[in-house]
């Protein structure tokens, strides 16, 4: 990575390897979620029998709260990034830990939601809606979980003092991933819970 400052030609994107790599990875994530969400749209559109009303099956208020939680975690993440941009090591650590904690709470609420639903007899095997609901939100939850682990890893490195005002790509790219996962949730929440 030291080398790239002096490369003169490849100016196409003007971003470093890691950040470019993350954006490219996110492009593939878009296609992955398109596969899942697209399948949901297609199945629902083509369904012969009436589709269950989400509000009657799912607990929308709790999830709306959970959506709010995830948005909060995006803010704390971006705050962490803003902190290290100003060289503020202390706030970097605080905001990172806050993000990991809030992210973990999101997963916690989701687990609670799942247990409740399963308790009420709504399962992955409960027809197309159950299939799609658990697959989509489950894989989103998996992404959040991985994100939390990565943020903890970044936080650990922050405690070791690995980041500085000049060099904090690690914070930036985990942030990109985290916001992307948030973004997917925004779409999922609308499509799965509200429409």
């Amino acid at each position, binding site marked *: 990575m030291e080398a790239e400052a*002096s490369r003169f030609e490849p100016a196409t994107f003007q971003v470093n390897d890691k950040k470019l790599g993350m954006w490219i990875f996110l492009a593939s994530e878009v*296609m*992955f979620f398109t*596969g*899942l969400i697209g399948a949901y749209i297609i199945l629902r559109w083509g369904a012969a029998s009436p589709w269950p009303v989400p509000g009657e099956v799912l607990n929308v208020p709790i999830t709306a709260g959970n959506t709010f939680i995830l948005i909060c975690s995006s803010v704390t993440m971006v705050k962490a990034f803003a902190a290290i941009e100003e060289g503020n090591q202390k706030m970097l650590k605080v905001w990172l830990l806050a993000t990991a904690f809030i992210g973990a709470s999101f997963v916690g609420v989701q687990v609670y939601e799942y247990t409740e639903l399963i308790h009420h007899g709504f399962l992955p095997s409960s027809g*197309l809606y*159950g299939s799609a609901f658990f697959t989509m939100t489950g894989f989103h939850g998996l992404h959040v979980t991985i994100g939390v682990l990565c943020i903890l890893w970044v936080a650990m490195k922050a405690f070791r003092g690995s980041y500085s005002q000049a060099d904090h790509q690690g914070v930036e790219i985990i942030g990109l991933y985290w916001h992307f996962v948030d973004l997917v949730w925004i779409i999922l929440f609308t499509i799965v819970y509200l429409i």
Partner: protein
Amino acid sequence: MATMMAEPTGVPVRVEEHPQSFIRKYIFSTDHKIIGIQFLFTCLFFLLIGGLLAVMLRFQLGFPGATMPGGSLLPETMAPDGIILPEFYNSLVTMHGTFMVFFAVMPLLVGVYANYLIPVQIGTHDMAFPRLNMMSYWMFLVSGLIMLSSFWVIGGASASGWTQYAPLSASPEASGVSTGQILWIVSIAIFAFSSLLGSVNYITTIINQRAPGMTWLRLPLVIWTLFITAILGLLAIPVLTAALIMLLFDQTIGTTFFLPDTGGQPLLWQHLFWFFGHPEVYILILPGMGFVSEIIANGSRKPIFGYKSMVYAIIAIAGLGFIVWGHHMFQSGMNPALGMSFMITTLIIAVPSAIKVFNWMGTMWGGSIRFHTPFLFAVGFVMLFAIGGFSGIFMASSPVDIFIHDTYFIVAHIHYVLFGGSLFAIFGAIYYWFPKMFGRMINETAGKIHFFLTFVLFNLVFFPMHGLGMAGMMRRIYEPAQYEHLSGIQDTNTMVSWAAFGLFASGLYFMVLFFWSLFKGKPAPENPWEATTLEWTLPSPPMHGNWKELPTVYHGPYEYSHPDMEKDWLLQNERPDVVSPAHH
């Protein structure tokens, strides 16, 4: 000669000089060249497996119900007394397609050559993410071994075709395979992740790590094809992953995405699969086209004809590749109106393909052709890929496809494009870059024998399949002769099978030649083919880190027979005025 050109570029050297342990150097290596070589050996092993499966299924087709020599070594559940069972035949077809597509040809093109060639052709020290690269290899190996192991689980390996059409693939009751089916899905999901890591790496590296002066329109065509291929993989493969997850859940936890009883749509699987599948077949041909462009320019001693239109054609093929997937579904019950649009887009793909074929011919025109082994394979590619492309036109016309869909006409097409195309390109690439990779030459005469054997036997195996398809012989049929309309084809099938055994034997001959050359071949010079791209400025094999000082690039990739020069090739980091200023 490279030193003549050296200009201070101010790039810090990243070459690691300190000695590494054997394990770090050859097993858990992060050096792109070692990883490429690891891929090469693994893929050739899987190619051998795929070939072995083909030979077994050809045995059944050539000699239905006969005892297969050595077949008694197989377990009762596959071939009691050496006689292949119908359920085992289905597994053979499925796993043959799977191994060839996912574990032999695709990683041979991308895993081996993207890894090996990208850094040395664009002029950098290594991949952007060497550790991800290593992970990509190990995940690939694991996925391949999982796939292989599925032969030995209860119920045997997956038997629903490499296309895994649901609901057959989603319900163990229907296919009789459960564990093997799950292993298939898991294995391909891991494979998909491995190739995702690869794609991210290749794209980033090509965008960000090009040597000074290596502008987009100076990139060797191999790099262009690998770049576009990586993009195709990046966008197409995740859709397969998503579909695989749904299929896995249908199998295991009771979801019903593809099961019609509760409203699931079997055709949804086909749409998702082919949305991936058609870009996938272009993943399987584009890098081959890159190798061929490279080798044909080299053999003809001419700049590639129409470099820019070659680049546009690559991009056009890839772009169109995303909107033609429905041509696999003309007879699937898909809305006929969609069939119409898919037919038009499919036919249009012939246009950029035509550009490529005719530009290769244009490159040979007026050349001064040297018939080295890689060049022979490249010419073989052009001749055979064209035939495969032509049969594609028949199938693209949806009314004609009504009859030939799911017949051996398709099987002929598959093999003309994938073997006559991709695999010939791969053989060409192996011969061409072997000296660079291993520092030894492959004997030219021995290589040419391999070429002629393969070329002749290939056509004997696969050309008659067009005829079998026209006669109406269906794919994936264990015992065709029981149909009235197929009563007359056994002779052809037997002949094809003999030729297929010969083709496999020519593969074994290549294997011997390969290993013999690895240890006993003549030592290779730096630039044995007198080629022009950057890797030929490096020693054979190149050292760890490739360059002490990065090269500077002055012009396009194929400056052969420059009129101002005595020698007929000009490396990308040479300037004609510096090399031979006083020629006039």
